[in-house]
């Protein structure tokens, strides 16, 4: 079983509130700069893109580079005006896209 991404954000918020969102994606983030003990380069394998959307609209996105440490962690803020779903996606160098969702109720 692969490690699943971790999310931390409130379940409820007031209209117009600025909420904090934390995400952590378990990933080796192999830089492509390292060599194994036979001197061969260990191929790069990183999460190269992270996207957060709310009700289909972009909230935050980032392009990741090889120097970023294992298990990339993002902490950012979003202003919520309506109830809906935050959708998160992480794109691996091998094309795999891991997604996660979290609902929020806005009173």
């Amino acid at each position, binding site marked *: 079983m692969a*490690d699943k991404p971790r999310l931390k954000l409130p379940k409820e918020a007031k209209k117009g509130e600025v909420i904090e969102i934390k995400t952590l994606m378990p990933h080796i983030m192999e830089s492509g700069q390292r060599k194994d003990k036979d001197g061969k380069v260990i191929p790069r394998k990183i999460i190269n893109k992270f996207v957060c959307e709310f009700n289909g609209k972009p909230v935050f996105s980032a392009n990741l580079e090889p120097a970023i440490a294992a298990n990339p962690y993002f902490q950012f803020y979003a202003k919520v005006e309506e109830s809906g779903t935050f959708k998160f996606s992480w794109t691996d160098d091998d094309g795999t896209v891991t997604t996660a969702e979290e609902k929020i109720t806005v009173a």
Partner: protein
Amino acid sequence: MTRDGISAVVFGAAALLMAGAALCVAGAGTAHAQANKALPALELKGDAAVRPWKRYPGWPQRDESKWSTLAKMSSPPAPKEPRKITAPIAGDAANGAKLVADRNRGGSCLACHVMGQAGNADQPGNVGPDLSEVGNAGLSDEQLFNFIYDARVYNAETVMPPWGSHGVFSDAEINDMVAFLKTLKKPAVFKVEVDNPDKRGTPVEKRDNLDAMENPGMWAIDKAQVLWKARGSTGFACSTCHAKPETQFKTWAASMPKWEPRLNKVLGVEEFITRHAKATTGANYLMETEENRDLSIYLHNLANGTPIKVDITSPAAKAAYERGQELANRKIGELNFACTDCHGKVANHWIRGQWLGAPKGQYDHFPTWRTSLQTVWDIRQRFQWCQVNIRADELPPDAKEYGDLELYLAAANEGQKLSVPGIRH
């Protein structure tokens, strides 16, 4: 409950085979149910870890087989008399200065001693006395030589490794170090305050070890919950008998390890998982494999907050505890350390930049996430690493000696509340 699963699996197979499989499961089920009332079912045969045990590939692969381990006594006895040094020692002080700071040779003298400007006074330890002014102490060449060669001739209780009698340094190298020691006549000057071990603050762990955002050790719990429901070769899963682990295991891990009369050894949580799973679900969760670690974290985590309390009341358990105490005090390896040297006599000091903790507090957080290694270690792997680190051969994780030692350590941690998975450097 297993019949459905079994008949589904063997759908279309020969009726005879199916009957055989069903019988087998029924048999195992009965045995388990009966055993449940008195003693938990355990696989009593075979080893609970890989044999032959092979050291982890990233660990030092030196052959330390000639030194004592927790399983055998083979190191030479301490010399009774100091080596006689008749002529004045004329060593190369400059080479001595290099040797005392050489981390590849026994961890360097600076690991335990402040030695003036040696090694640029870069984070020395304070396990041994400050030697910055030893050149003024009026010690003879013979005394200086023997303190390095084998300090046991002057102090039977010393924690200093016998560098000469264990062959880590040659006589000529010790002569060079003696020559260097004689040049030490001024207190150390530290570039920054943390370089001074007496001023370095006690490390404090501020991370929340139970927050999955901060501690990847917590991820094991999700994986263990999947394993919990996975049917093994018998058709049983952990959840077959333990449907409510949150209540059934609320305190269990805090009572481990435990003397197991059927095996004549002490079982910790990890070996219990291996043997109990094998006897019930048929799953093969050998010690120090990912599944075993995941389940161990899960079972410990369920008992978080429970004070550790192990049972050493029976004569056999008490004897195991006493053996554990003897093992904790046994000098092993090329560096000739006992557990109680670092985590007893000189606990709460610095060995280079590492803090040596007292035994209390060294158990309640295992299995623990190692941030420096990005992996989980259980207590047996921690034992193994300590031994390899002091240049002794480690034992397989299911060794009975580790059981005794773990019982002793757990008893020393009585009252400490479990908080698993821990998070450490």
